């Protein structure tokens, strides 16, 4: 629940009321008890109780008058809740591809449960996704998004250049290859000097690598690539993503 200094700690039903009042004011310029009751499908008496509580927190301007307005503090709180609601709805609907209505419902539940910090991080992540739509596309193309089962997955997923090695999905690396097999490099995910050395030796995406033999005990590996014989350790080979030769 919110605990930052410029908002008052209010329970989730009250947040919903605040949100409703804000929307009504936005739409009609004012909100009346019966409009609120209608929108939230509760009795007017219930609304009154809630309004009294909100007034105690100086969130609404309520003196048993018919027209209810939000204080500036209340307006800030309402906008915040609404922004969360919209963001989460979009997240469930647009990225996770849930039906709109179910997405809105999930958003309603979740918007109250998240702390400010968690929400802030989600917002930042969302901003990142907005800037980098290829990540969303990659996710939606990936069989993982469609809920594919593990076994058939690895081969298909390994063709995606955006996949990182440390994905939960087990990708095939050069260290999984048996002697005598031939594979195609999809990505060199090693770091620093190793990566540059491999690139310099011609181990680039789409080149064919044959694993010819291994040392005693399976290490190091002896491969052929671009006409050269190379020896590399198993730990190094595990940073090279490959797919089976078509």
């Amino acid at each position, binding site marked *: 629940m919110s605990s930052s200094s410029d908002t008052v700690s209010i329970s989730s039903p009250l947040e919903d009321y605040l949100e409703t009042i804000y929307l009504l004011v936005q739409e009609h310029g004012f909100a009346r008890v019966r409009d609120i009751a209608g929108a939230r499908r509760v009795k007017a008496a219930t609304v009154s109780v809630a309004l009294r509580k909100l007034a105690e927190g100086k969130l609404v301007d309520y003196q048993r008058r018919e027209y209810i307005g939000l204080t500036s503090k209340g307006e800030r709180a309402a906008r915040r809740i609404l922004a969360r609601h919209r963001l989460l709805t979009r997240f469930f609907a647009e990225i996770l591809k849930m039906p709109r209505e179910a997405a809105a419902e999930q958003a309603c539940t979740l918007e109250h449960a998240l702390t400010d910090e968690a929400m802030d991080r989600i917002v930042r992540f969302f901003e990142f996704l907005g800037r980098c739509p*290829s990540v969303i596309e990659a996710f939606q193309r990936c069989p993982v998004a469609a809920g594919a089962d593990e076994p058939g997955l690895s081969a298909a997923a390994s063709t995606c250049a955006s996949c990182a090695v440390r994905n939960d999905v087990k990708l095939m690396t050069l260290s999984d290859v048996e002697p005598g097999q031939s594979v195609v490099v999809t990505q060199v995910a090693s770091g620093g000097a190793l990566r540059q050395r491999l690139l310099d030796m*011609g181990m*680039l995406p789409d080149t064919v690598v044959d694993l010819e033999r291994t040392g*005693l005990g399976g*290490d*190091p590996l*002896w491969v052929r690539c*671009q006409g050269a014989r*190379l020896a590399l350790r198993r730990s190094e080979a595990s940073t090279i993503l490959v797919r089976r030769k078509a």
Partner: protein
Amino acid sequence: MTLTLLESPSVLSAPRARPPRARPLRVALAGNPNCGKTSIFNALTGARQHVANYAGVTVERRAGTCPLLNEPGELIDLPGTYSLNAYSPEERVAEAELLAGPDVVVVVTDSTQLQRHLVLLVQVMQLGANPVLCLNMADEARAAGQTIDVEQMERLLGFPVVETVGHRGEGIDRLVAAIDRAARNPVERHKLVLGEDLDRALDDIARALPPPARPEQGAAWVATRLLVGDQRQTRRVAALDGGEEAVALARLHRTRLEAATGCDIAVFVTERYFGFVDGLLREVRHRPRHVDTRQLTDRIDAVVVHRLAGLPLFALVMFAVFWLTFTVGDYPMGWIDAGIARLGEGLSQLWPEGSDSPLRSLLVDGMVGGVGGVIVFLPNILLLFLGLAFLEDTGYMARAAFLTDRLMHRFGLHGKSFIPLVTGFGCSIPGIMATRTLENERDRLTTMLVLPLMSCGARLPIWMLLIPAFFPPAWRAPTLWMLYGFGIALALLLALTLRRTLLRGDDAPFVMELPPYRQPTLRSVVLKMLTRSQVYLRKAGTTILAISILLWAATTYPKPPSYQVDAQLAKGELALAPEEVEARRAAEDLEHSIAGRLGRALAPVFAPIGFDWKIVTAMIGAFAAKEVFVAQMGIVYSLADGGQGTDSLRALLARDYSPLVGISLMVFLLIAAPCMATIAVTRRESGSWRWALLQLGGLTAIGYLLALVVCQLGRLVI
């Protein structure tokens, strides 16, 4: 990729005015490892070459002169590198040499590996160098059915292209002519097209470079390094006035190119290099669809690196090398020994019989004796280097690293550490020098520092003296084996500790090319052996000479004013043969000398590990060379024949010391204080006294501690 020129004028290909040269011509040889660059270098320079180290790094700098060229000049053989990306010391050295602007850069390639080897040429072109392309090993490529349209290639590249067979000297005359031609007419602009997007980005960055970072040569290279985010270049340029802008621009282009291609920038740039090479080769290379140049190598490898047969075969090969080194080497060693002895005698005769001239002693005992003790090992070293050079040139060395890497890696070492370590059983000096094959600084230092723990040949006489003195016959062989085993175990343990503490860091990439087997030429093997042995000899002539003189002085001066033995003889208390009198006098000399006094002074320090002043004094002398310990013990015990391996010395040792002290002594001598030549070579090979002194101090401390443990625990048990 096409080879047309960019239409817009680009700063990258702006014509350069090269001022007339006032200094001698400078030619650099660049190339991948295993491209036969050294054979080209040898063919060009003959024996007119010398090897040194680059300052601060353990990279060999080979330079020479070529008399065939029109004008005199220096030829530099750059270290073999796959690229100039400055990840290894070799690459940094090569980059720096090329940025310094040699007049001509000969890029040597293996004609059978062109698609990989020409990538370095692309980088050399980016550096704005004035290249000559040398297509080496042209015979192998022709045998595989490949032909290169050299004229077409020259037309497309705009600089000379020459086919050679380096080890047979074929095409060297043409190469020399090409270098002359290139020196006279340097390339004005390179026809290098890496794709419009990349070329535009590089041009843009190059324009933004502040003038000091924009050498007439190499703007494209600096721009590329900034684009791929090379930290050294980025820092260097950012520190310059207006450099921040270029760095920011490079970052912008990087983001843009990565977003546009969906590809990491390093991969993107490397792919473009390979793309250019592919395009070029498509225009100039004709070869049958299926070339199999490697059949013979593969057939050999099927046996040599066989899962089960590989290691035993390797053991056999190593045994053969050692047999050659130490059995065959024994004969010339004997001759040199005799020669040195005769030299000593010859020098002595310049003085009258019985003279005790200090100069005579200095020359005979100090200089001839000290340096001679090291020169004696020259045949061993020559033969060992001959064997190693042969294995290296055939391509077997890389296989050996492949076979042993798994074992060595467990202890934080590298497959290539194995051969230097094994060499250490013969002598630490060639072992330490053999660590040059290790590319990574940390691997090399670790190997170097623990190498003296391999019980060297000079320690064998000590074991031969001590083991029979303290152990019954049945125990002698096992004790010797245990000593060797203990040294190995300690070396591996220490290597592991070093890699986790002082020399911590990620493992260097092991990725290693296994070159095709080639028949080594006598010329190249002998040259390699000689240039490396030169280093050893030079060391013997300088540092080792100096230390020998110091040690001689320490064991000779000051002289006692009179000898007790003379007094006793005068009183008639003793009746001794003349040799015995001499021996007594020598013992008194030593006891009275700095070494003897130091021995006495240090004796309390060594008391906890059971040593008395006699042992300590002998050990001070043994710093010159380990085996001197035996002779020094002989002198201390005033044995007439110097006590060389005699039973009388053993009997005296057994009388004076317990077997426990014997063990403690062997442990200490195995580990502590490697000889002065080892320290001097470590200093040279590591490039700093810091590591040499650490080796000396560290091993001595460990030796002391372990001897202490042996001695104290032993006393509790017994």
